[in-house]
């Protein structure tokens, strides 16, 4: 890892270390954290001892924390509104990622920024849900015919919807992985294991093991590498929260096997431990289903490690841009077969303004 990134990672691992950073270090760390979407996270972690940070630095952290707290507030309100819109939909409506963390006040929520609300529901409820949402003022962003077909036939979600008045974005998923993906999982089991949220009875959140597996799958199957480190920080917070209970790790590996998500879990554990020093028991890594060969793990290290740092120039090595590109292609490779992938990438490349 590039040494310029070391202080930033140290701040994520051991927040107390921030009290010892000099102004020059902060000059880099604040920019890296902002680019990675983690400035609010640092703010939340430093709030207890902020008088030991330079005031000019704390201003930025507190500003980002303010923004994160407002977003959390907005998610709570949005869920209250959505509860009304989705009253008539049968079966569980499961919150994923940021919305789940915020609504259940889970450890990754502190200082976390998010851009949309992600829902998971049974595929059979998709049409009824879309109709109910449209009645509630949610509209699909304009897409051309190709994009619509891309979402309908090959993806695991509806096209993103936005509320006409409140401007919030909503992603409605019926699976964790695209329909066209090489890897198949079983979203029905995740829905079945979810539990209703006390504050928002219309919504459920996934079981702890499923929260971890979804976060890992998202990280290693989506092409959003500017958020790679942020997703890893989510994982780290979840694993630290649940991992203290010894039975957790066995259940996690078992669940990964059942859901066919061993490989993404393996990488998640490997890199969380490597970059954030997440306390992952050695046996969990050793017994992870679908553990790759040491050669392919080494190849992935070359790709993943620089990519986690790619949000800011100060952290970028020579390899980062090619690695990010390879990972972008890889994320698509995992999402669709080659006869779909090549025309898709070509089309994205030729389109004047990429989505």
């Amino acid at each position: 890892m590039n040494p310029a990134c070391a202080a930033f990672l140290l701040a994520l691992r051991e927040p107390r270390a921030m009290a010892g950073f000099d102004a020059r270090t902060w000059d880099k760390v604040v920019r890296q954290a902002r680019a990675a979407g983690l400035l609010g996270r640092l703010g939340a972690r430093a709030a207890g001892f902020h008088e030991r940070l330079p005031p000019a630095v704390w201003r930025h952290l507190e500003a980002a924390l303010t923004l994160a707290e407002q977003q959390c507030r907005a998610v709570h309100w949005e869920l209250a509104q959505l509860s009304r819109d989705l009253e008539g939909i049968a079966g569980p409506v499961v919150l994923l990622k940021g919305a789940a963390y915020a609504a259940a006040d889970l450890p990754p929520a502190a200082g976390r920024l998010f851009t949309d609300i992600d829902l998971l529901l049974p595929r059979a409820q998709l049409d009824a849900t879309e109709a109910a949402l449209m009645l509630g003022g949610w509209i699909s962003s304009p897409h051309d015919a190709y994009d619509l077909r891309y979402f309908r036939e090959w993806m695991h979600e509806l096209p993103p919807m936005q509320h006409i008045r409140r401007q919030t974005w909503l992603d409605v998923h019926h699976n964790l992985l695209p329909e066209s993906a090489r890897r198949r999982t079983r979203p029905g089991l995740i829905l079945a294991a979810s539990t209703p949220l006390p504050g928002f009875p219309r919504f459920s959140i996934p079981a702890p093991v499923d929260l971890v597996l979804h976060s890992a799958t998202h990280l290693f199957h989506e092409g959003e590498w500017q958020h790679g480190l942020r997703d890893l920080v989510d994982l780290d917070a979840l694993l630290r929260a649940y991992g203290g209970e010894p039975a957790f790790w066995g259940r996690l590996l078992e669940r990964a096997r059942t859901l066919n998500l061993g490989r993404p879990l393996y990488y998640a554990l490997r890199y969380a431990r490597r970059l954030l020093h997440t306390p992952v028991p050695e046996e969990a890594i050793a017994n992870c289903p679908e553990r790759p060969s040491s050669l392919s793990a080494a190849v992935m290290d070359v790709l993943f490690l620089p990519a986690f740092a790619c949000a800011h120039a100060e952290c970028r090595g020579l390899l980062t841009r090619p690695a990010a590109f390879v990972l972008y292609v890889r994320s698509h490779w995992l999402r669709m077969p080659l006869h779909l992938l090549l025309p898709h990438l070509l089309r994205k490349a030729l389109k004047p303004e990429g989505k």
Partner: protein
Amino acid sequence: MKAPRFWRIADAADLAWRRWEDEYVFHHALANDTHRLSEPAGSVLTQLLRDGEVESAALADACGLDAQDLEAILRALVKIDFLTWR
């Protein structure tokens, strides 16, 4: 449909307010909405903030409003998620 009888501030509405001359400004924290309200609407809200749940006729008396005006104000306040009733 018969008019609902008992009114109170919505559970989710954490309200803050100021009064300047004969106008009010209210802030709904969870929705993060700010509303500029007239004297009668402001007095209905401050009454309910003070007394908890109030029956329609008592509310009309306390605020010096006739039933019809009160009804219009209450409906508007329900619409912006400030009030609820049973």
